[in-house]
């Protein structure tokens, strides 16, 4: 079974802090994604990556950056956390090819105070 893990289930940070969210997948998937999930808005794509060191902006990249130095790991970085970044963050991975399903991690609930 594909396993996608995220470094923390719950995280509390202060405004202005630099925040790292880590995601690791163990099935050699080419594609990795970061979403944020907010009530009434569904999931919105922040960034995605097709390969190591490759990254593409999603629909809401402002205030975020990403890093993919190894195929299995995709990091989401909040350079200076703000209260409007309080949300659930979901990581996903998939094999290359449109019909391949995305496998999701358990999510990190981030609270910025």
């Amino acid at each position, binding site marked *: 079974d594909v396993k*996608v893990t995220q470094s923390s289930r719950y995280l509390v940070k202060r405004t202005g802090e630099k925040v790292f969210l880590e995601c690791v997948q163990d099935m050699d998937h080419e*594609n990795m*994604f970061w*979403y944020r999930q907010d009530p*009434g*808005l*569904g*999931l*919105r*794509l922040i960034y*995605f990556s*097709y390969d190591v060191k490759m990254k*593409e902006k*999603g629909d809401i990249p402002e205030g975020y950056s990403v890093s993919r130095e190894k195929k299995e790991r995709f990091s989401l970085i909040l350079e200076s956390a703000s209260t409007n970044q309080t949300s659930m963050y*979901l990581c*996903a991975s*998939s094999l*290359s*090819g*449109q*019909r391949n*399903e*995305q496998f*999701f*991690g*358990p*999510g990190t609930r981030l609270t910025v105070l």
Partner: protein
Amino acid sequence: AQTVTQSQPEMSVQEAETVTLSCTYDTSESDYYLFWYKQPPSRQMILVIRQEAYKQQNATENRFSVNFQKAAKSFSLKISDSQLGDAAMYFCASLTIQGAQKLVFGQGTRLTINP
């Protein structure tokens, strides 16, 4: 741009009954995929069912089936013989062949199963 709309924020159904969750989408592409994902409380999101737009036959996975109406851009999910374990947030999503491999999600429908 693609959009996906789920107009039912919440639904409830009696155990063993059938429920239908609605989803409409908008795309200018002729070839695309549609998905229903399930997110149980405090658990990971999993794929429920997938439909290729070029296939006229509605996809079915055990108790889950879809009603895919391409002309109307509608993609509803029917859950038969509802079970307590079906309680979850359900998300409809679309993905186009021409674009990047990005899913566009609807707002979600929270399904409650009444015993």
